[in-house]
């Protein structure tokens, strides 16, 4: 696979321009909260309503998105993929993008929305992301090695934020 571009901001802008309802979760969410971590893809949970999936398809078309595990075959996500609770691992012209129908069991957009907050990225873009306490709780629940490795940093980041 060729080295991807990493322009997560461009992906977020494309989603905002197409009025897609989505939440930032995962490593980029942690970084936006101030955790000094690296991550190589952008994890987003999207609303799976028919209207939102149509807007999402338009945004993905603008980003030239395709399934990254199929490489040169350039298979594109369709409605059936995006209405499922599964995880769609995509490559876009702006970098790797994981679209998650649900996380941590069956928690989708609607279930997670009460545990999110808005965050401005510059003057003209606002996104919603999981609050840090919920992100920590979800990583504790999943219990995967890669999540365990970041938990100490996330917990200390939350503590430092609360001191400010």
């Amino acid at each position, binding site marked *: 696979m060729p080295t991807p571009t990493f322009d*997560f901001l461009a992906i977020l802008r494309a989603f905002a321009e197409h009025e897609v309802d989505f939440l930032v979760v995962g490593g980029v969410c942690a970084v936006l909260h*101030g955790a*000094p971590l690296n991550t190589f893809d952008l994890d987003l949970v999207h609303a799976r309503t028919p209207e939102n999936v149509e807007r999402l398809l338009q945004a993905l078309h603008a980003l030239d998105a395709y399934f990254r595990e199929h490489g040169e075959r350039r298979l594109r996500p369709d409605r059936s993929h995006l209405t499922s609770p599964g995880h769609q691992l995509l490559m876009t012209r702006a970098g790797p993008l994981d679209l998650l129908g649900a996380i941590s069991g069956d928690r989708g957009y609607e279930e997670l929305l009460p545990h999110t907050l808005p*965050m401005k990225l510059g003057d003209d873009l606002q996104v919603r992301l999981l609050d840090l306490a919920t992100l920590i709780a979800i990583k504790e629940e999943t219990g995967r090695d890669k999540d365990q490795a970041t938990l100490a940093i996330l917990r200390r980041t939350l503590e*430092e934020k609360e001191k400010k």
Partner: protein
Amino acid sequence: MAPNDRLISESLQDSGDADRPSHSADGVDLTLIRWMLSLTPLERLEVLQQHLRAVARLRDANPHL
């Protein structure tokens, strides 16, 4: 000024962190967290993207890796 240009040492001096511990009991570097928290969310995202692009450039520089 790019976010990485704001040195961690400057951030520590500015915020009076020199008297606070640099690491937590479980070994987390708190200076990096305080530095990240001194940035705006957009700057934090730019830091991440700069790191990823640097890694990609290093990998591309050695095709045998």
